[in-house]
């Protein structure tokens, strides 16, 4: 992961278009000097959790406690009720307010979301989200932001999430609530940073996998968007499925692959399914069928003698 300074939405786009988008990245503003001395509030929110295309972005924004009103005056509200234009304008204003407000976003690539969700040990999207939020708060602490209060838009049950965060950060006053982005200005600011970063990242997506950009593009990335649907139908590879921009762990994507791509069977899944426990009586009395089996050495290595194909 690397760090880089950004001053407006255009910078974000330029930055994303120049890097390999298969890995995660954290982008941060400079830290205002005042945020290191005065007590600050920090807001956490995410963008792009539901879509089947592109990255999920986590954002934090912070400012001194008494500057919260100034953030509100800028017009920070729930990023979803603002137009894209308005969000980008506000993001520019947040960057201009660099003497009292700072932010940081983590762009979690679609490929790493799939890889997390499809690990042997299930690692849910909620866990990915929690870990990203925790990582960003830790980073702000390490960078010297004097945090006193943390406001988080919830993922999963709010009480449990609040308990988890309070254990990790006992020194902060933590509030986890649903729709926090509409209530707390610093969460609104975080939500704007995250949403602008997500939109820009998706807009300038560069296909490492050699997919041609079609004229229609790929739409919003939400499964119910007809443009997105068409994009998915048109970009199936018989063997590899979808390009890395698509979250193949999503049921929408998986369903299309099951219908239109080559079936894939994973060895381990079959093995784990057949765990027959022998009945206790089978240990007593002579076994009737004594078939000569191959030595475990060969069985463990899946070696068999073959005379024909």
């Amino acid at each position, binding site marked *: 992961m690397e760090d880089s300074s950004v001053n407006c939405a255009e910078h974000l786009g330029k930055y994303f278009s120049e890097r390999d988008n298969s890995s995660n990245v954290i982008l941060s503003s400079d830290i205002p000097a005042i945020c290191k001395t005065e007590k600050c509030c920090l807001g956490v929110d995410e963008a792009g959790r539901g879509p089947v295309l592109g990255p999920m972005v986590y954002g934090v924004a912070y400012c001194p406690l008494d500057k919260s009103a100034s953030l509100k005056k800028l017009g920070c509200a729930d990023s979803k009720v603002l137009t894209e234009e308005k969000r980008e304008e506000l993001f520019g204003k947040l960057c201009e307010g660099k003497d009292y407000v700072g932010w940081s976003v983590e762009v979690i690539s679609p490929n790493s979301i799939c890889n997390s969700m499809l690990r042997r040990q299930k690692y849910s999207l909620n866990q990915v989200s929690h870990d990203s939020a925790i990582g960003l708060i830790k980073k702000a602490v390490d960078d010297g932001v004097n945090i006193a209060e943390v406001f988080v838009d919830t993922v999963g049950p709010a009480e449990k999430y609040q308990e988890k965060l309070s254990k990790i950060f006992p020194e902060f006053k933590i509030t986890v609530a649903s729709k926090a982005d509409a209530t707390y200005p610093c969460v609104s600011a975080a939500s704007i940073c995250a949403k602008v970063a997500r939109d820009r990242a998706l807009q300038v997506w560069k296909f490492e996998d050699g997919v041609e950009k079609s004229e229609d593009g790929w739409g919003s990335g939400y499964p119910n968007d007809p443009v997105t649907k068409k994009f998915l139908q048109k970009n199936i590879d018989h063997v590899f499925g979808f390009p890395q921009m698509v979250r193949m762990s999503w049921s929408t994507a998986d369903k299309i692959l099951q219908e239109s791509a080559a079936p*894939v069977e994973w060895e381990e899944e079959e093995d784990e399914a057949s765990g027959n426990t022998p009945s206790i009586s089978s240990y007593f009395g002579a076994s009737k069928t004594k078939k000569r089996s191959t030595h475990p050495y060969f069985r463990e290595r899946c070696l068999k003698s073959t005379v024909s194909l």
Partner: protein
Amino acid sequence: MAIHLNCSVKTVENFPDNQPVIHYMPCEIKSNGPAGVSTYFKPVDNEKDSKFKKASFRGRPLQGEDISLPSGYRGLVVQETKQPLVENVERTMHVSHIFDRLTYWNWDKVPSANDPFISALSWIDISEALHSPIESISD
């Protein structure tokens, strides 16, 4: 029934400088034919240990390792132009590529001697010790 293997001079001459990249996948892909491997499948070094590689297939995380075949052995890619319609007939296959290394992949697990494929390679040495004629030792 007999299986004939045809191997052109060109194939042999191309080896070992021009050998194909072989991936041993932990899954069965029910598809026969060409695949856009170099566009879609892009292994990178594992950041924790550069001995291993990582990649992604159909969204699943894969961990891999480059493996050399036992010395004295070669891997062959063979193609059958005409598949027989009945069993027990002579078959002819053409060697299209020769290789002496491949990348072995596991699903979210670093390759190790616990993997049947890797441990099976050790049978070659054992088999040689068991089956090769015993040389008489002159006093």
